[in-house]
């Protein structure tokens, strides 16, 4: 079951696309250990690096933004990303949840 904020993300994605932005959609597809966001949580990123939604409550958003920009730049349809929340990826915001998450990243086009 989703929180409404995750569902509203798709409507936001639609608005961005209608404004001619290129949009990547990141969805949490698997979690291990303690990770802050549940499976199905979503985040969208456009080619300017702007983002909405959340896939980890702040721990790994920056990596997913970088991956999204690459996906859009290389015009790839999708990618699977495995992230370890507890390592150096987490230092920026000082969180170390100790969990791991897998993200499915896809372009909407």
């Amino acid at each position, binding site marked *: 079951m*989703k929180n409404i*904020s995750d569902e509203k993300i798709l409507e936001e*994605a639609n608005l961005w696309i209608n404004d001619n932005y290129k949009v990547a959609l990141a969805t949490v597809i698997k979690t291990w250990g303690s990770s802050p966001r549940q499976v199905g949580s979503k985040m969208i990123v456009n080619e300017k690096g702007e983002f909405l939604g959340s896939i980890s409550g702040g721990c790994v958003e920056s990596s997913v933004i970088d991956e999204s920009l690459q996906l859009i730049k290389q015009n790839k349809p999708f990618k699977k990303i495995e992230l370890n929340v507890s390592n150096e990826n987490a230092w920026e915001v000082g969180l170390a949840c100790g969990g791991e998450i897998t993200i499915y990243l896809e372009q909407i086009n």
Partner: protein
Amino acid sequence: MKKQLLDNIISKKNNKEEFAIVTNISTGKNFIFEKNKIIDKNFEKYSDEINNYFNNKQNGIIENTDIFIDTYLKPIKVIIVGAVHITQFLLDYIKNLNFEIFIIDPRDYFASEKRFPNMNIINKWPIEAFEEIKTDSSSALIALTHDPKIDDPALKHALKNKFFYIGALGSKKTHLNRCQRLKEAGFKEEEINSIHGPIGINLGGKSSPEIALSITAQLVLESHKL
């Protein structure tokens, strides 16, 4: 994901449909799963597992496969009786949750568009209003007028239709009188006891936003027992 799929998801959500997006994460192929409809041939062999995830309202990857299921459930209906001050604060909290919200108030000076912009407001008596809203055991009632003329018919409707959450505003004394009236109307003690009255979990606050917060907390708590 194709833009067309995104459009489909948004339109199904707006129509309050229940469905799942099933994706093969190694090929990128996907389709919209709906109960009792034909499954895309690329996913036919996972039919049982997909149905299981959907029936259990779960998201996740089917074990030992690359098939990811993302389930979309229709929102829980929350019917608020009384377009009062507390209702305005209550909406601030609950509009961010997965609820479909209706406000009923027969008093047009309360149920005005100006006081509740962009909300489903039904400016009718509860009995007439409930003819327009399909309700069942996954619906919730929040009765806030503390006027028996307005609240009681709504409470009776909610009890008869076995709403999962029924809350009614009013002091302990008001609630005792309410229980007595419902008893005289033929409701069983066990049904009457299912009403949360005085409404909300006890946070100690008495201001409108604090009461609204305590109602929100109780509603969320009860909705996770569904």
